[in-house]
C-alpha cells in the first residue's frame, strides 16, 4: 500500500474507533482499551521479532517495568497534589523512559546473542520478575502490587460517557502514537537495516550496517513500546502487580504477533483483537453450556490457552505469515482475477 492509502486507512480507522467508544457499553469500551494496550506491546514485539529477528519472551517483564514506573510516578505526583493532564502524561513518559532503559540494558546483552539464547535470557527475565518484586516488597509491595492514584475522567465528559470511555480514549491515543512511530521506523532506512540484520548479519555488516547498534536500538524501541502498553494497563486497572505480567502473558504476546502475522503492524492489530475477543467468546460459550461449576472452573482460561497454543503451532507450520498473510494472499487473488494481465508481485 502506498503511504497515502495507509494514511487514509489509518485516519478513517482512528475516527471510526473513537466513534465506536460513544456507542459501546462500558464493558466493551474496557475491552477496546485492553486491545489498544496490547497493541502497543505486540506492535513493538512484532517489529523486534519479525523485522529484526530477535525473539523476546520477556516483553511481559518490560511491560511490567513500564507499569511500575507509571505507578511510582503517578503516586508521587498525587502526593504532591498534582492533578490534570500532567498526572496522566508524565507517568506515561516515565514508563517509556524506564522500560527503554531496561530494554537498553537487556538489548546490549541481546546484541551478542542469537535465537534460542536470547529467548532463554528473556525467559529468565520474566521468571525473575516476581522474585524481585517479592524480595524488595517494601518498594514493590510483593505479590499484591501497588495501588495507583490515576487521573479521573475530565469534567466535561461527566454526562456523556463513563470512566471506561476515557480509558479507551487514552489507550487508543497511546496505541495510535506507538503504531505511527513504529510504522515510520519500519518503512524507513532503519527498517531496511533491521531486515538486513535479520536476514544475514555478515552481509549486512559488509554493506555498512552497524549490526550491534541496529539490534540494540531495535530492542530499546521495542521495550519503550512495551512500556507504553504496561503504563496503559496500569492506568486502566489502577494497579501494578507481578501476577498480571506472568510468563503466560509473555507467551500470549508472542502468540498475538505470530498469529496476526509476524513483522506486520496490521498483524499486531489482528493478534491483539484475538487476544481479547477469543477468551471472551470461549468464556461465554462455556457459560452457555451450563456445565457444573467444577468443570467450568477447569475450562476457564485453560481452554483459551490451549486453543491459542494449537493455533500458534498451526500458523507456524501451515501459514507462517499469519492472518495478515492470508488476507494479503486473498486480496492479491481477487485483484489478479479482475485484471489477469497485471498480477502484482508480493514483496
Amino acid at each position: 500500500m502506498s503511504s497515502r492509502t495507509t494514511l487514509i486507512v489509518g485516519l478513517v480507522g482512528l475516527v471510526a474507533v473513537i466513534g465506536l467508544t460513544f456507542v459501546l457499553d462500558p464493558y466493551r469500551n474496557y475491552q477496546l482499551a485492553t486491545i489498544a494496550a496490547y497493541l502497543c506491546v505486540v506492535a513493538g514485539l512484532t517489529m523486534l521479532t519479525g523485522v529484526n529477528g530477535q525473539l523476546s519472551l520477556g516483553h511481559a517483564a518490560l511491560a511490567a517495568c513500564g507499569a511500575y514506573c507509571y505507578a511510582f510516578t503517578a503516586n508521587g505526583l498525587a502526593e504532591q497534589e498534582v492533578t490534570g493532564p500532567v498526572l496522566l502524561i508524565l507517568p506515561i513518559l516515565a514508563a517509556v523512559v524506564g522500560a527503554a532503559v531496561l530494554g537498553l540494558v537487556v538489548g546490549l546483552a541481546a546484541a551478542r546473542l542469537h535465537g534460542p539464547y536470547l529467548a532463554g535470557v528473556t525467559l529468565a527475565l520474566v521468571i525473575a520478575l516476581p522474585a524481585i518484586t517479592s524480595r524488595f516488597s517494601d518498594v514493590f509491595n510483593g505479590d499484591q502490587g501497588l495501588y495507583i492514584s490515576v487521573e479521573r475522567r475530565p469534567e466535561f465528559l461527566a454526562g456523556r460517557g463513563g470512566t471506561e470511555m476515557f480509558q479507551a480514549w487514552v489507550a487508543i491515543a497511546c496505541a495510535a502514537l506507538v503504531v505511527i512511530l513504529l510504522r515510520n521506523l519500519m518503512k524507513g532506512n532503519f527498517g531496511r537495516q533491521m531486515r538486513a540484520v535479520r536476514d544475514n548479519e555478515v552481509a549486512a555488516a559488509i554493506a555498512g550496517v552497524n549490526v550491534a547498534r541496529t539490534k540494540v536500538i531495535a530492542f530499546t524501541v521495542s521495550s519503550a513500546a512495551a512500556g507504553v502498553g504496561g503504563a496503559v494497563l496500569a492506568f486502566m486497572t489502577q494497579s501494578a502487580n507481578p501476577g498480571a505480567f506472568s510468563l503466560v502473558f509473555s507467551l500470549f504476546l508472542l502468540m498475538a504477533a505470530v498469529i496476526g502475522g509476524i513483522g506486520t503492524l496490521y498483524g499486531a492489530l489482528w493478534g491483539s483483537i484475538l487476544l481479547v475477543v477469543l477468551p471472551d467468546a470461549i468464556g461465554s460459550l462455556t457459560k452457555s453450556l451450563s456445565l457444573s461449576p467444577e468443570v467450568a472452573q477447569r475450562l476457564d482460561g485453560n481452554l483459551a490457552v490451549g486453543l491459542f497454543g494449537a493455533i500458534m503451532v498451526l500458523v507456524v507450520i501451515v501459514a507462517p505469515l499469519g492472518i495478515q498473510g492470508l488476507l494479503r494472499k486473498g486480496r492479491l487473488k481477487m485483484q489478479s482475477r479482475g485484471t489477469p494481465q497485471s498480477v502484482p508481485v508480493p514483496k
Partner: protein
Amino acid sequence: MELERFLFLTVDGLARGAVLAVFALSLVLIWRAARIVNFSQGAIAMAATYLAFVVTSATGNYWLGLVAALLGGAAIGFVVERGVMRYVSSVNPLNSVIAALGVLLVIQAIIGMLFGNGYHPMKLPFSQSPLPWLSGLSISAYDLFVFACVGFVVIGLAVLFGKTNVGLRMRAAAFSPELARLLGVRSNRMITLGWMLASALSALAALLVIPTELGLNPHSTDAVFVYAFTIAVVGGLDSAPGAVIGGLVVGVLLSWVSGYLGATLSPVAVLVLLLAVLLIKPGGIFSVTKERTA
C-alpha cells in the same frame, strides 16, 4: 555452626543440582539430535509427572509411577516430534522455538483442564530426614536415591553413545543427517529416538524434583526449565559432561544464594549467571570452537 550450615547448603545444592543436571542433559540431547532448544521440555516433563501421580495414586506403588513417567515421557516426546516438530520448517530457527512454545501452552492447558490448576501433594519413596550414620552431612535417604538415579543416567548415556551401535547412529544422524542417511542410518528415526530419550530423561528429573520442593501443578516446571536451560548454556549446549558439571555448580550456587541471601532470589541469581556466561563466553564454558565465524 557456620561450617555446619555451609556443609548442609552445599550438600543440598549438590542434590538439587544433580537433578537439574539430568534435565539439562535432556536439553543437550535434543540439541544434539535436532539442533533445537526444546522450550516445551518442561511441559512434557510436567505432564509425565502427572501420569506418575495418577498411577501412584491408583496403585499405591511409587515404582509403577516412576515407570509410567518414563514411558509416558517417551510417548509424549514421540507425539510432539512426529506430530509437530517434524513439520516445522527449519529455514528460520525461530520457527521451532515458537512451535515448541505453542506445544508448551497446549500441554499446560490440557493438564489444567484435566486436573485443575491447584497443587497436588506427591509421595516420596524414601524419607527426607537426614540419615543418622552420616550425621553432620545431613544427607537423606532420598538424596542418596537421587544421586543413584543421576549416576545411573549419566553412566547409561555414556555407554549408549560411546559403546553401542544405536548411539553411534544417533550421533551420526545428529552430526550430518544427509550423509548418515546415505550410509544407511535412518536419520529421521534417530531424531525421534533422541526426542523420546530426552523426554523420558526430563520426566525422570521432574519426578525427582517436583515432590520435594515445588509441588505438582501445571506451571511447576516453568522455573525448572529456566534453571536447566541456564545449566545447558553454561555447560555449552553441545556438551554432556558440561551439563553434568554445570548442573552441580549451578545447584550449589542456587543453594548458597537461597540460604544466605533469601530463597526468593534464586531466579535472579540464575538470570545474572546466564547473562554473565553468555556475555563472556557465548558458546558456554565447555564449548570448543569448531569453525571461524565472521
